[in-house]
């Protein structure tokens, strides 16, 4: 029995086992997004669910990301068939209402769903305080590297994606990120204090 060779062979196994052990420390299902830190992809999407005053927009109105430069944008992708979206719906709606006077826009984007189903879902959930848009062909979703719902993107005042949230957003998280992004907004003399109209 050649013990010296045995020892060398056993040591050779260690890196592999360490690799496997390391494998437990991360989630194979999440895909890190390359978007944070880069310019948020522009979009021009039509509203299908108006939201509620004072944040509402008329149905059929086109929302362009380019118009919202200089303010914080919270872009939330959702679907009526998405169970986890139910968890964050109330949080998003109430936070949006709370920040109504602040330079931040909450926007919903419907993902792979029929607008009629989306409207019915909103009614079932007791209303949505901010408008939601439809995304034909999921072009915008793909532009944002979506691979599930809900996903929420936080866009800062200079139009860059600051943070991507996978899964339902909590109230604490929402407030924290929105506050920090508002705090670093460039001070623009023409920046509107409220968001009536466009």
């Amino acid at each position: 029995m050649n013990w010296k060779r045995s020892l060398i062979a056993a040591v050779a196994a260690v890196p592999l086992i360490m690799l496997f052990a390391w494998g437990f420390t991360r989630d194979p299902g999440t895909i890190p997004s390359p978007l944070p830190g880069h310019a948020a992809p522009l979009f021009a999407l039509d509203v299908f669910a108006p939201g509620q005053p004072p944040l509402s927009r008329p149905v059929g109105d086109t929302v362009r990301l380019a118009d919202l430069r200089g303010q914080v944008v919270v872009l939330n992708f959702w679907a009526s068939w998405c169970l986890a979206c139910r968890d964050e719906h109330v949080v998003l709606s109430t936070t949006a209402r709370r920040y109504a006077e602040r330079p931040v826009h909450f926007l919903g984007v419907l993902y792979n769903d029929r607008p009629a189903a989306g409207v019915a879902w909103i009614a079932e959930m007791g209303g949505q305080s901010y408008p939601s848009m439809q995304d034909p062909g999921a072009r915008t979703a793909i532009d944002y590297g979506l691979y599930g719902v809900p996903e929420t993107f936080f866009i800062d005042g200079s139009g860059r994606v600051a943070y991507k949230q996978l899964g339902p957003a909590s109230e604490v998280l929402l407030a924290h990120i929105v506050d920090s992004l508002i705090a670093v907004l460039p001070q623009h003399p023409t920046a509107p204090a409220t968001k009536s109209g466009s």
Partner: protein
Amino acid sequence: MKRNTLLVSAALLAALTGRAGAQAVGASVAPVAQQAAADSVLEARTNAVATQLRCPVCQGVSIQDSPAELAQQMRDLVREQLRTGKSPDEVKAYFVSKYGEWILLQPRASGFNILIYALPVLAVVGGLVVVVVAMRRWTKPPENPSI
């Protein structure tokens, strides 16, 4: 009657998946897919790129093979980008910029990734060397003829 109830429940179920109503409601779901290209050359080029891109909501299948809605929409996007004159590499680069390297079904052969292409080749070459050397040694006549 019963069949109508079934169709209604089917409709509700279909709504859950968001698949139905492609014609019924119009605007929302993938109108581009229905112009499924008569242009077979474009189709072949789309297939060639689509087999290299991973479906983000499936397990390891390409967007060419996956029946998932997002995969079909990505395929449509690939087709459209190719039609407007982008090269396959540019199309792939677009998806990499959105989803990261993960979206490619085989790693780009650069940097560390070269190992995955080089090691198997080295294994075959190295193995061939070992086999040839061993065979030479084994077919050599014995140096000391047995008594």
